[in-house]
């Protein structure tokens, strides 16, 4: 789904087993992209006071206090799960296929980009993202999300979040290389006894609904725990059934109109 790519497809591999929850990615993203702050707010959701991705929040670190040890670990029945969430830049992107203005496009790097000078804020992308990533900001009126640091990619630089990640939990690179690296990493973790490690959305085979994510994850719990959908699907893949119903219903209405005109003929006088 990457027409006329002039560059190799780029993406993120987020290895959550390496994440330490430092939120450097969140800060770097805000600073580089010059996003407004979210305010100082205390949620009580562990150390997560960011809550969710949104129009002005393009990286979000999830904090899960799991009352069980990781596979192959001794000690207390407790483990920290951290995961830096981001726009997945899906191979089949719901937002892009829904956008009626053509504001959302696929870049030469295979990423999904919203053009702020075209978006008219219709809000249709918002309900079409199966991950709840893109959002419309009320005072701005337009939809916003992660750009995969399009400006940095243009200058052959690494996106701000990956650049700032101190543990290389967020890795940026060519998608095929990232996939190979990720598969190797899962193998290693399994050998070390962490059998629960798996990849989320690394290609079309693992996530047919999106045909693979350009920002995929290594997880150690079920996706729901990280607020990721277990079997997401681009809405467009299911829409043919709705169009078929609509065609039948519309023809039914026309038939009903013809029939009621014909039946009304006897009863009617002149208009």
């Amino acid at each position, binding site marked *: 789904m990457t027409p006329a790519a002039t560059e190799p497809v780029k993406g993120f591999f987020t290895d959550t087993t390496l994440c330490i929850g430092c939120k450097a990615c969140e800060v770097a993203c805000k600073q580089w992209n010059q996003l407004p702050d979210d305010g100082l707010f205390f949620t009580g959701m562990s150390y997560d006071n960011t809550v969710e991705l949104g129009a002005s929040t393009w990286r979000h670190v999830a904090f899960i206090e799991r009352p069980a040890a990781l596979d192959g670990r001794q000690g207390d029945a407790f483990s920290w799960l951290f995961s830096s969430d981001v726009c997945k830049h899906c191979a089949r992107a719901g937002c892009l296929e829904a956008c009626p203005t053509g504001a959302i496009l696929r870049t030469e790097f295979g990423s999904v980009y919203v053009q702020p000078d075209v978006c008219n804020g219709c809000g249709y992308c918002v309900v079409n993202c199966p991950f709840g990533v893109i959002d419309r900001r009320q005072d701005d009126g337009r939809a916003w999300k992660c750009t995969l640091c399009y400006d940095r990619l243009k200058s052959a630089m690494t996106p701000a979040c990956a650049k700032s990640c101190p543990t290389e939990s967020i890795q940026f690179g060519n998608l095929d290389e990232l996939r190979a690296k990720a598969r190797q990493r899962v193998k290693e973790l399994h050998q070390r006894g962490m059998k629960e490690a798996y990849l989320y959305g690394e290609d079309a085979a693992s996530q047919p609904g999106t045909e693979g994510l350009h920002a995929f994850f290594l997880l150690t719990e079920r996706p729901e725990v990280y607020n990721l959908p277990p*079997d997401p699907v681009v809405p467009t893949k299911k829409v043919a059934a709705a169009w078929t119903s609509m065609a039948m219903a519309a023809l039914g*209405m026309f038939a009903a*109109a013809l029939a009621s005109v014909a039946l009304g003929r006897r009863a009617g006088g002149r208009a």
Partner: protein
Amino acid sequence: MSDQPDFRQIDSSLAMLTGEAAGQQVEQQDQHLARAVPKPWPDAPAVAGDPTYYDRPVLKQPVWIWAVPLYFYVGGLSGAALTMAAAAQLLEGSRLWRFVKDCRLIGGIGGGIGSALLIIDLGRPSRFLNMLRVFRPTSPMSVGAWVLAAAAPVGLGTALWSHKPGFRGRTADFVGLAGGALGMPLAGYTAVLLSNSAIPVWQAGRRPMPFLFVSSSMASLASFYEILGAPRAARTTLTIFGAAGRVAEIAALKAVEKEAAKVERVARPLHRGASGIVLKIAGALNAASLILSLWPGRSRKRQLAAGILGTAGSIALRYGIYYAGCASARDPRASFHQQRQGYGARELEQSVYPG
């Protein structure tokens, strides 16, 4: 940099606003966190069993305002009117010519009002013409924008010029038939638009929802004429058309409930909460208007009551479906259960339906 705080804390003597999000216009501090977590979460959520992430929604709620469900009603009414006009012209063009004109006028004016409702909902209303910048068949909203953009002027133009002698009249009569072809999708595409979303209850209802919206549009037209007072020549026609629409509307709502009920959590907002109440009221109003409209004997008061109840029912139905979608988006388990029970992407592999 202006004096107005933009919550970026960037000193303009040291840095320029050129980042990817520098153009994001901020007027007030975003309150979404205060809304998202009104009081601090008391303890760590369970990971075993049926987990969520602190019960946070996995999806974003629709951002549309009150104008959008109202547009679903107005657009549906216009679509039904244009369709009826084409049918009446085909079969009874000379006897019902005034009714045909009136229907086209309703279609044209409704299309105009509908467009206005959609434009005020836009985050950037001045950019409404961007809707016609591209044609994107994968986007039901793009398809609908083009249909609406064509239907409104066709309705108005043909209302003015059809059934007139000469070339202009003949052209208008012909274009009016094409207007019927625009009215049909205008009445139903909004259901496709909602179905084509990640919102569990809308996606689950994608097969019956277009029937629901189209039949509700038929009922809306009949109700509208019951309020106006139907012309004598078309009275029986409208009664039959409206009864068919109202019966189908009641049946299609049941079908939507049945489709959604495949996953208990997905069907929940159709029965519970504010959306459940609105849908119950809609069902009762539509049933009442059906009974009143078919009651034997002729009474202007009863006709008026049927029209008012039917109109209220059709409007309530659109709001109920819309708010059910909002509630469904807020419930992460609706998405999780739907996908775990095989109605995510897996449904496509097993499905006997194409797509």
